Structure formats: C-alpha cells, structure tokens
C-alpha cells in the first residue's frame, strides 16, 4: 500500500511541473497552431535564469525565500521579453505557411537556443539548491518528502485553475478562445489577432520558463535538458489533445504516473512507457483524449 502511495505521490509531483510546461505548449498550439519544438528550450532558459538569480541572491547572504521570489520574478521578466521578441521578430514572418514549416522554424529556434544557453552558462552542470530546503521535510503517511516537492502540486493546480478561469470567465480569455476556434471570424469581429498571437506566445514561453524555474532547485542544469523536456511535454499534449487545457492536465497526470511507476517498477522502461501510452492513445483517438471534433473545410 505504501509502495502504491509512493508511486502516486511521485507521479503527482512529476505531473505538477510537467503540467505547467504542457499548458504553455498546448496554449501556443491552440492559438497560433504551432507545435513549438523550442518550448523545451524555454523551459531550460527558465531553469538557467532561475539558477543565476538564486546564486546571486545567495551570494549576498539573503535568505532562500528571497531567492525563491527573485528567481520567479527574474524568470517572468526575461521569459516575457524573449517570448514577445521571438514572436514579433521571427515567427511573424512565417505565418500563413504550413504547420510543418512552422514546426521546422521552431526546430531552428531550438537549435539556436541550445547553443545560446551553452554560450552563456557553459556545459558544466549548474545547481541552485538553496530554495529546495525552503519548506523543510514533511512526513506524509509514513513517508518522508521534501516539502518543496509537495508544494509544487498546489502551485501547479493553482496555475492550472487560473488559466482555466482566465480563459473561460474573462473577456480577454473569451477573445482568445474565439481566436482558437475561428480566426477569420474573430478578425471580422474586430479582434486584433496579431496582439492575441503575441500575448499567447509570450504567455506560453512564460509558462515553460516558470516550470523551469520551479524545478531548477530540484535538478542539475546541463545541456540536453531541453530535448528531454520537449519529448515529455509533446507526449502529454498529444495524449490530452492539442490545444486543450483539461487534456494537458490529464495527460500530465498520466505521464507523471507512468514515469513514477516505471521508475519504481522497471527503471529502464521510462521513455518507452510514455511513448507507448501516446501511441496507444493516438491509435484509438487520433485527436487525443480531449480534443473537440472540428468540421473539415474542403
């Protein structure tokens, strides 16, 4: 029983940060119809920026709580700037081209960012563990957990809820939904689609980097981080259905549990399991679990 609980809790901890990454990916796909390969690079960017922020704060002898806040703020600032810059400066040039071409554009961005992070932060592992001790250790049903890990679960639930609320219950969100469903109609109703695009992309980047920042204290930052994360978050959004918030949540929990289960039961099969689930879902529901059927336009 305890073993089972360990798997579930580990799975939920995994799912919490994966969900935030996948949320950004699915949002960008929903609005811009771009499957963003560079999304993993934004995650890595967030993690690296957070590490720098934490190290700078710790060097001044300030408490880890300040480091935690500083890392979130700096990441939010840099990610929004990078997102807006990329969308306005680069992606804009390729709108109207085929989905696959846009995919390759983001692949190019992925390649470029991969080297940019190497140039700035080098190839050696970087650590930023100070905030990890922030919430102490907690005992939960006879198991000991690092408080920080458990805190991630409510944080990501809160982020998920606010995204859902923002999309479904606010005017801005309704406009974004309108663009997701029918861009031409939104334009004719006077929506500034370009602005929605820019904001949505920047927001996607923000979510990815936020997840990077939140996980930064848990992991070591080194090259290769981004391609691992993008592979996981691809699986999540495809399982859940591209462009669906609920789908991202369910996909994240599934992938998180699958990862935790295989780590405990069959360590080498981790990636294999996740992609097996994804292939199985695609076989029976090609649109993913939560995607609405769309009418075919001939």
């Amino acid at each position: 029983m305890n073993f089972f609980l360990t798997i579930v809790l580990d799975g939920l901890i995994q799912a919490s940060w994966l969900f935030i990454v996948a949320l950004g990916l699915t949002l960008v796909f929903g609005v811009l119809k771009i499957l963003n390969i560079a999304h993993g690079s934004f995650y890595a960017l967030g993690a690296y920026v957070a590490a720098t922020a934490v190290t700078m704060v710790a060097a001044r002898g300030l408490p880890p709580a300040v480091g935690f806040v500083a890392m979130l703020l700096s990441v939010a600032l840099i990610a929004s700037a990078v997102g807006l810059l990329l969308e306005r400066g680069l992606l804009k040039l390729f709108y109207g081209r085929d989905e696959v071409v846009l995919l390759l554009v983001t692949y190019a961005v992925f390649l470029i960012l991969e080297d940019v992070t190497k140039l700035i932060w080098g190839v050696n592992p970087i650590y930023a563990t100070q905030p990890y001790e922030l919430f102490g250790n907690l005992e939960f049903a006879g198991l000991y957990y690092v408080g920080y890990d458990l805190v991630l679960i409510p944080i990501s639930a809160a982020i998920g809820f606010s995204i859902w609320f923002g999309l479904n219950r606010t005017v801005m969100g309704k406009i974004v939904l309108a663009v997701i469903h029918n861009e031409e109609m939104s334009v004719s109703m006077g929506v500034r689609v370009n602005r929605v695009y820019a904001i949505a992309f920047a927001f996607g980047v923000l979510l990815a980097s936020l997840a990077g920042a939140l996980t930064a204290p848990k992991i070591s930052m080194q090259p290769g981080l981004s391609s691992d994360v993008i592979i996981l978050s691809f699986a999540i959004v495809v399982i859940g259905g591209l462009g669906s918030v609920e789908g991202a949540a369910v996909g994240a929990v599934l992938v998180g549990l699958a990862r935790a289960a295989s780590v405990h039961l069959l360590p080498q099969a981790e990636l294999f399991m996740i992609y097996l689930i994804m292939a199985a879902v695609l076989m029976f529901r090609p649109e993913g679990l939560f995607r609405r059927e769309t009418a075919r336009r001939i």
Partner: protein
Amino acid sequence: MRKDLHPLVMVGLVAGVTLFGRVLPTWTLSLATIAASNALIALGIVVLARTGNVSFGQGLFFAAGGYGVALIANAWGLTDAVAQVIIGAVCGGLLGLVIGPLIARYSGIFFGMLTLALSMVFYGALVKSTALGGSDGFNVGRPSLFGMTFTDTREADFMLYAVSIIVTGLAGIVATVLFRSEFGLTSLAVRENNLRVEYLGISANRVITINFVIAAIFAGASGAFALMAQRHIDPQFAYWTTSGEFVFVAVLAGNQSVAAVFVASMALELVRSFSNLYLPNTWQMVLGIFLLGIILFLPRGIGSLWIRRLHRGKDFPTTEPVVAKGIAQ
C-alpha cells in the same frame, strides 16, 4: 525535373560522380558518403511528403536498418557492403509494411507526431535492451565488397563512397521515374485533396502506404550506410533529433527536384563540418540560422534556384513547396 532528363543520362551522371571520387581528397570522400546516405533517407521523406505527410520518425527505419545489418554482420560474419545495404533496405521495408497501413489513416501534424512517437518507443526499447549494448551500442567490422577486403583506408573509403553514390543515385532515378508515373501524380493528388481521390475510386490510404514503405526502404538502406561509415551503432540512430535532421535536408531540398536532395544534403554536411571546424561551440546555431534562412528566402527549397530559372518566361504552373498544404485547407 519537368524538363525530362532521360533515365539513361542519369545513369551516366551517377557513373561520372562515382569515378569523380577517384580524384577527391580523402576527407571529402567520407563527407560525400555521409551526404549520400542522408540524401537517400531524405529522398524517402520527399517521396512521402508528396502525399502531404511528413514523417518525423524516419529514425525508426534508419535504426531498424542499421541494427538489422549490425546484428546479422556480427552473428553470421556477413560483411559484404552490397548485401548489407540490401539487408538494411529489407529490414526498413518490412517494418514499414507493418507500420504503414496503420499510420496511413492519419494526416498532418498527427502523422508527424505518431511517427515520432513510434521512433521514440523504439529508442526507449533500444536503450533498455542490454543484449544490444544499451545506450552505448556496439561495434561491427569493416565492410568488404564481393569478397574483396580493403586494408588501405583510402581504398575502403572509396569503396564505401562508390557503393553509397551508386545506390543513392539508383534510388534517385527510381524516384524520378516514380514522380513522373501515374502513381506519383496520384500521390500529389492525395496531398491536394484526398477526399476527391477517394471519390475517383482510388484508395488514398493505399497510396500513402506504398509511399510510406518506399520511404522506409530508403531509410533502412541509409541506416546500413551510416553503420558501415561509422562501424558502430547506438540508439541515437532512432532519437528524434536524428530524424529532425533528415526532415531538415528534405525541406532544404524542396520537392521539385531529386537532384536538389543531393545538393541539399551535401550543403548541410559542408556547413556542418566547416562550422565544426571554425565554430566548434556554435555549430547548432549556425545550422539553425541556415535553416531559418532557407525557409525564409527559398521557401521552395534549394531546387527552386535552378528549376525556376529553367521555366522563366513560360506559362508553367509551379508546384507547391514540399510540405505546403496551404493553411486554409
């Protein structure tokens, strides 16, 4: 390739390029071998892309061909280069036959994602399998040709170069003939509108499946070349970035010309090795900028550089870019 070049002329061209290898410096030889091998798999992607589907998981067949050849080579001591290419092609083709019919129902981004997922499943399985060396892979011996063994490295390199150029050249000729055939034109029709093709009484799924199997055969043979060139295999063959590079070559080439695939593949290898040499820490960045530049300035690929010039002034409908299905479909 609208201006019909006779297949016999192309055979002559391939022979010429092969003999040209005698005067090339050694470093260009191995570079050209890899370029030819990459061109072969990218050619498969172009063949498939003509039905409107882009595979992001060709690494699956690439690895299947490579591992198949490596296992047989180590188990039975089969080192003949031509036999290895055939085995690689058969391995890729058989796997394609299994997967093709299942995957032909999907289109667009889902097709891409599913192929990527399958290749990653294979990657995961390979990393796990300790019998196959896990993530380290294993080594194989030097290839021979028709009973001849090559001890001189220069001769061995030339042998590999010749075999890869000839095989890839033949594949290119087959592809050109295929593009001009009824079947090739049907494939284009499937890309434009698969529903209408179905109304005309042709199974769009079967057209996609056949193209998929052809792409898988090319990929398997390409895997055999990569194996012979490196004499080592590891799960990286099936990793998604490997597949991404092949799509990269296909996009670079565009779908207007088979020759463009070879030029694109060679261009990529040159860019890679020069940036490896002069900008060792930023070659990925160079590659990314190169890709962005091509997509931005040559949306129809490298092939459009000379194809467009050929038809300038004529009233000739140009074909769509390799993967452009049109967003408003």
